[in-house]
């Protein structure tokens, strides 16, 4: 797959939230305000980019070499947890404004399926390190795209009347469903027409 192909695939065609349901918990939880959605989006892009590089490096050069690929789940999740912790420490020390913006979202990301998801998908698709990095950034961008769109919609809901049982999460799910329907316009046929 070409790099443009990877980007379009992960941002639109296989949008992590709307077509693969990865990272749905923060998507529903943190999409009430546009501001926090943007913050969460950047934090996810950042962590996913780092995580996809490191996990691919470890998988390709360590796990395969020692023939212990069956330990990948444990290794990946520990690496991701350590990475998030490390990133949090570095940001806190060196850039307090950035920490203020992203800090509260970082701990939430360890248990975000999207990060482990991209590591697993990179393994499954046999990406090399750079492909995996591009995939990580684009999947993060896809996540950000949908969470920001969602938050813009949910801010509008606050002024609208909604039947009581539907308030909050249910209407968010149904809206996400409609968004997923719209995103189906991005399919592989589009990729084929664009890239030949």
């Amino acid at each position, binding site marked *: *797959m070409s790099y443009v192909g990877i980007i379009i695939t992960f941002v639109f065609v*296989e949008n992590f939230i709307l*077509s*693969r349901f990865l990272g749905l918990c923060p998507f529903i939880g943190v999409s009430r305000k546009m501001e926090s959605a943007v913050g969460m989006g950047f934090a996810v892009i950042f962590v996913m980019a780092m995580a996809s590089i490191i996990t691919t490096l470890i998988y390709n050069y360590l796990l395969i070499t020692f023939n*212990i690929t*069956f*330990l990948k789940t*444990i290794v990946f999740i520990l690496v991701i947890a350590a990475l998030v912790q490390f990133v949090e420490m570095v940001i806190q020390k060196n850039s307090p404004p950035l920490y203020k913006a992203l800090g509260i979202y970082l701990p939430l990301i360890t248990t975000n399926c999207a990060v482990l998801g991209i590591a697993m*998908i990179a393994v*499954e*698709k*046999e990406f090399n390190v750079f492909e995996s990095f591009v995939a990580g950034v684009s999947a993060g961008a896809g996540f950000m795209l949908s969470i920001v769109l969602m938050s813009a919609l949910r801010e509008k809901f606050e002024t609208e009347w909604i039947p009581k049982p539907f308030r909050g999460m249910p209407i968010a799910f149904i809206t996400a469903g409609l968004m997923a329907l719209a995103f*189906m316009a991005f*399919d*592989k*046929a589009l*990729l*084929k027409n664009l890239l030949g």
Partner: protein
Amino acid sequence: MKQENKPNKANWDFKQILLVGSKLFVIAAISATLLSLIYAVTEPAKQENILAEEKETLSVLIASGDIGPKEAVNSMQFKQVISRWIVREAGNPVAVVLQLAGNGYGGPLSLMAGYKLDGELINAKLMVNTETPGLGKKAETDAYMNKFRGKGGTGSGYPLPVNKEMLAEQQQGSSAGSTTVFQVKRPANFAEWLFGKPKGNVDTVTGATITFTAVSGALEAGSDYVKQTWGGAE
């Protein structure tokens, strides 16, 4: 925040770090050992399963003839061809089964396809795929391969369809057209509505075009490989 951090840091003396670290190490070591033990049991079973599935598929794809041993193929031109089984009848090769790899919607997929020596597809089966559940899963069903069967040979009428336009043309062309593939067919009467089997094609609805592209691409590469390897000899 600061006041809370300081006494915490003071508590982290060397001894404690060692203790905590060793406990963590013990847990990790135990689980790694346990997992490798289980792996030693499950991995052979998994391989055995794959072999059994291959054998079963071979017998489905090829009705008669002696199926030879599995041979690895390292072709620079046809990277999608992974391995092959040559089928002989009275010592002469009559057909070949190829193991093909393609790239599907959700990751690589693996096909086994039987060809006559002129490149005509006898039958094919999708083996491993990691397609998103539901999307593109149709390709695993037997009927899906109908649109490829008997095509692609130098002697047979149709080339292997590699895009949906070609397929639609072939559907219209063949008056036999058993099932319409690209329209959701409405049931003709009440009885059909009540007892009919699922119709229409998930592909058109889900846009899982990539499964089709991957499957047809791999099948076409296989056909070309067969033509190049045996085409001259026949």
